[in-house]
């Protein structure tokens, strides 16, 4: 059977003013597993990642990492503990070089005890040719890959990936898919937010579908496409 969950999200609530961006989300994620997080725009996927990664404190519910409640802990401490993420719009340190971007994370965010080889990581992600260029020179897809490199430099146990595939060409897409699968094969737990069905199908073991701050489905992608409520949410524009 599947190993014990590394991440357990229970009834998570996040409010912005009176609006509940997360309205009681629950799911779990095991080491080596890739969980797809789907849902229409505004359904709360990014907010969910923001709360788990410590950018926002939850207003209710719990986030458990390895059994410990971590909701509301500071982001830099969670990064060191092994939770990292990419950003839907990439957020590199624009004036620093690509290598420096990753070096900061390798220096401050790696709590694993095993040093990370920055140049080898850049080579793996095919950013080595750009290592000494300012991150501001990179195009958007390259900046997203740099976000991933920075996250991986902290040797995370949980990686939260927010729409990494958008903007990649088909060759890059399939490359990125195998990369994420390789990370999971190495024991990392991945939560992957994505719209592209093909990518989700290739990468994930299981998906959950969110709508209006709640999860409405959990299971395989194939079952999700046959689920009446999921179909209604995606095709009917249920979210205004």
């Amino acid at each position: 059977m599947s190993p014990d969950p590394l991440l357990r999200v229970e009834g998570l609530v996040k409010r912005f003013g009176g609006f509940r961006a997360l309205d009681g989300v629950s799911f779990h994620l095991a080491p080596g597993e890739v969980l797809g997080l789907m849902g229409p725009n505004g359904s709360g996927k990014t907010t969910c990642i923001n709360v788990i990664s410590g950018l926002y404190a939850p207003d209710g519910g719990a986030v458990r990492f390895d059994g410990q409640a971590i909701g509301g802990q500071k982001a830099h401490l969670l990064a060191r503990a092994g939770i990292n993420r990419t950003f839907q719009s990439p957020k590199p340190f624009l004036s620093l070089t690509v290598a420096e971007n990753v070096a900061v994370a390798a220096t401050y965010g790696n709590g694993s005890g095993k040093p990370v080889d920055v140049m080898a990581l850049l080579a793996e992600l095919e950013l080595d040719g750009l290592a000494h260029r300012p991150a501001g020179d990179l195009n958007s897809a390259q900046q997203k890959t740099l976000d991933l490199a920075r996250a991986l430099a902290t040797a995370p146990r949980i990686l939260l990936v927010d729409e990494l595939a958008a903007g990649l060409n088909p060759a890059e897409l399939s490359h990125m898919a195998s990369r994420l699968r390789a990370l999971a094969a190495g024991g990392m737990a991945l939560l992957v937010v994505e719209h592209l069905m093909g990518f989700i199908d290739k990468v994930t073991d299981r998906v959950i579908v969110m709508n209006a701050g709640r999860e409405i489905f959990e299971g395989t992608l194939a079952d999700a496409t046959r689920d009446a409520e999921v179909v209604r949410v995606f095709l009917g524009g249920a979210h205004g």
Partner: protein
Amino acid sequence: MPDRKRIAGDLGLAALVVVAMSVAHGVYSNELLLFNFVMFLTLSQGLNLIYGFTGYLPFGYVGFFGAGAYGFALAVMHLHSPPLLALAIAGLAALVLAVILAPLLRLSGAYFAIASLAAAQALYEVIANPDLQDLTKGPYGVSLSGVFAPRLSYFVAVAIMAVTFALVVWLRNSRFGLSLQAIREDPVSAAMAGVSVVRGRMVAWLLSSVIAGLSGGVFAWHISVFYPDTVFDVTFSIFATVFTLFGGATTLTGPLLGVFFLYGVYNAIGITVPQYFQLIYGALIMGLVLFLPNGLVSLLTRRGFRVP
């Protein structure tokens, strides 16, 4: 991956200026002018620590300078401290002020700049208050003729400058300096990279303020007679800011260029024909903001050259 060649180059430039300012004292007779150069070299690099590396621009930077000057004066007048101990108290006074003002770091951009200026102004009002005459001598100013030592205080100022340069070289070549720049570029990403944003900003803020405090202390020692208006003059902030921006923040070279060129021009023509000076100064700054927002050094750095 500290790069020895880079560090050697940076330290070489720093040493060159330190030696030049030391030798100049024996060659050039206008000691006060030389002292002012040393002071602005120090203040500009001190401002560079906080502005260049974290992006916070404190218009009220002079508040730390004034706190240092009065810290020095009060220690000499009331505790009869020897000058070097009084100087340590000057640095401590600025440090305490920086801790009190640390919550301002929660503000961003223009709000931070203005709030720090208001804080400096408030401190000035307290010190210049005639009711505190027994303690601070209020608006009537202080006289420290008992410790007057222009030559020694000059070289102590050079030493403070040298330490400040060394700090900038360290930040330019260390992982900690890199983490500060990461915070400046994107605090959210910096946190995800494991950097403690609050702590990093705080360290830069305290270092920067102590430098201004020591600078104010040694200024008080050097001129020995001054008024609250002298040491809380916002011109100190403006000059340090303009010199830093002119040459280019986050480098050692930039503020040096700014001081030697702009303060040089100021002393050559500014004092005799101030109206032309202000015109030229204003035009220079506008041209710079429009065409070279990252300062003179960006002519080189944006072509991929590294300057110290």
